[in-house]
């Protein structure tokens, strides 16, 4: 009974457990509702969903179930137009073609070629847009693929970005020695601190001693307790290189502030978006990589995760397998992001671009949806807001 509904919920990543399912069945047994779709919906929601941010996912899964659609994933796949799955872009970034373009005469020609491709792509986008908009189930967000937004903000920059990656320039590690201007950031980060007593008992506990002495009827009973320590664990992932170069200084400040503020802090780098591997040392990014899967296993769910990146890239870098501008990725980036969202309870994305520009970039909207809207600008206010969410 209701098992399919339950599975549908799990598939849509609504966090439901068997206990809730039993509760729901029990509720039906007690005739809390009978033969009324709307009422069943309300009761199911009250029992299965424990947080209003899951309401949307619940609604989608509920609708999908009662439309008799077996699987939400297939549903989504079906809604993505075929054209999207074609990889015009990376093919144009392949070695031969690069050589070809270079032989054609460098950047100007390259831009022309790209523009041509873009024209082609735009046509397909509009077709795709409708589908995604009305379906409402796509992880890519409605209205995210606005061709206008593309053309205005992105064209020139995107091409520039790709060329940079081709050049395989070495990025230097983010410097954590920068002290100037980090005070403000530190104050914001301080919100995150959470003190708990851990370890050996080596501190005299005055009120505990009084309490126990009183309980024992006046015989002195000395109490010790462990020292208070900041127990917040932090995992930070930096987008590095490419379009992030402009923000290196702010990020360095942020990084430097984080380093001194937290004991448990791990950091990794990625380029543009998270795929199957990350790295710790930018000079050896080619040779020393950590598998993202390992990262997910190594750090417990109590780690708070912060992504720092401009989230400005071509949408297919997020949505497509093989979408990365640097290498061939077997699984699309959004799958990796979903794994992060599933594993870690608290995850935010900090974006150095001002908030009002986010809507102009399709990929920013997509990523924003992926991280469930927990994207904050890299300003003191944004940081504070983000930290408040992480600390909740």
């Amino acid at each position, binding site marked *: 009974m209701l098992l399919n509904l339950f599975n549908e919920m799990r598939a849509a990543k609504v966090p439901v457990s068997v206990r809730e399912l039993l509760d729901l069945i029990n509720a039906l047994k007690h005739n809390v509702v009978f033969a009324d779709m709307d009422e069943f919906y309300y*009761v199911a929601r*009250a*029992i299965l969903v424990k947080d209003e941010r899951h309401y949307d996912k619940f609604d989608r899964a509920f609708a999908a179930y009662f439309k008799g659609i077996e699987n939400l994933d297939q549903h989504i796949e079906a809604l993505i137009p075929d054209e999207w799955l074609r990889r015009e872009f990376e093919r144009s970034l392949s070695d031969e073609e690069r050589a070809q373009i270079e032989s054609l005469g460098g950047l100007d020609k390259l831009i022309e070629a790209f523009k041509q491709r873009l024209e082609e792509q735009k046509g397909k986008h509009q077709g795709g847009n409708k589908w995604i908009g009305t379906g409402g189930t796509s992880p890519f967000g409605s209205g995210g693929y606005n061709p206008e937004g593309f053309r205005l903000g992105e064209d020139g920059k995107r091409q520039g970005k790709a060329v940079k990656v081709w050049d395989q320039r070495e990025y230097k590690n983010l410097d954590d020695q920068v002290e100037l201007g980090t005070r403000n950031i530190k104050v914001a980060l301080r919100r995150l601190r959470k003190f708990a007593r851990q370890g050996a008992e080596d501190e005299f506990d005055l009120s505990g001693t009084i309490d126990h002495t009183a309980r024992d*009827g006046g015989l002195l009973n000395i109490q010790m307790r462990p020292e208070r320590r900041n127990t917040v664990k932090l995992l930070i992932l930096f987008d590095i290189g490419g379009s992030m170069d402009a923000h290196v200084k702010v990020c360095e400040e942020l990084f430097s502030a984080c380093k001194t503020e937290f004991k448990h802090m791990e950091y990794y780098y990625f380029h543009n978006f998270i795929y199957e591997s990350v790295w710790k040392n930018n000079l050896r990014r080619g040779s020393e990589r950590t598998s993202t899967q390992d990262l997910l296993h190594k750090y417990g769910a109590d780690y708070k995760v912060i992504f720092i990146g401009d989230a400005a890239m071509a949408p297919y870098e997020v949505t497509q397998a093989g979408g990365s501008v640097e290498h061939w990725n077997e699984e699309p980036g959004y799958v990796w992001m979903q794994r992060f969202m599933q594993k870690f309870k608290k995850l935010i994305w900090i974006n150095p671009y001002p908030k009002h520009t986010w809507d102009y970039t399709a990929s920013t909207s997509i990523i924003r949806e992926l991280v469930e809207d927990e994207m904050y600008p890299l300003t003191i206010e944004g940081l504070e807001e983000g930290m408040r969410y992480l600390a909740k």
Partner: protein
Amino acid sequence: MKFSGTQSYVATDDLKLAVNAAITLERPLLVKGEPGTGKTMLAEQLAESFGARLITWHIKSTTKAHQGLYEYDAVSRLRDSQLNADKVHDVRNYINKGKLWEAFESDERVILLIDEIDKADIEFPNDLLQEIDKMEFYVYETDETIKAKHRPIIIITSNNEKELPDAFLRRCFFHYIAFPDRNTLQKIVDVHYPNISQSLVSEALDVFFDVRKVPGLKKKPSTSELVDWLKLLMADNISEAALRERDVTKAIPPLAGALVKNEQDVMLLERLAFMSRRTNR
């Protein structure tokens, strides 16, 4: 026992069903929502409609879970022992019952409101898991188990300042009081002020929703603010015409202080008003 709202409380269908499911299955109901949408009111109205006693446990940042069960006043026992008082020999004299104990030992079914649970320490809900699940707890000092005679109806409210642990959430039913739509608001106003003129309400609702739509407000006015504001409008005998002329000169609605509680928000409204006046000129 079925809850269907009261004369002074408008409950939407989804709220009613969530409440009834929680009552039938004897589970606590966790209620969230914007401040001022009637979360605490719900428990009071439940008590009224069932004629049951309401026990309220207000949570503060310093509240500990065991305070809801009982507290052992060891210090006064120590003092009594120095004074050689007789009651020092029975530990029961020094155990102060908490709200949960009070609710458990009641002879009839009571409503227990645990108000603003998110104010407490992050471990607070975890410390109450067993008590809420089994509705019983153990008193170490007297070696006895306190078990609920009648499982109380538990309403828990949260303002979303802290996230609650999963294990706790699994034991609760959940309802999010969404901001009421215009029709529901109209009903709420009717319930509170049956004699108010309909055109005034309609004008006031227009203004109210306009203010809610202003982007960037720190705290949007909610139901309780609307109700207070209407009371002021009626007390001041402000006519609906005064509300209607808001667009040109008097850009801030009359008595806006009841709607907007934040200095910055008032500034924001004034600035918007100033700008609209300039464009109208």
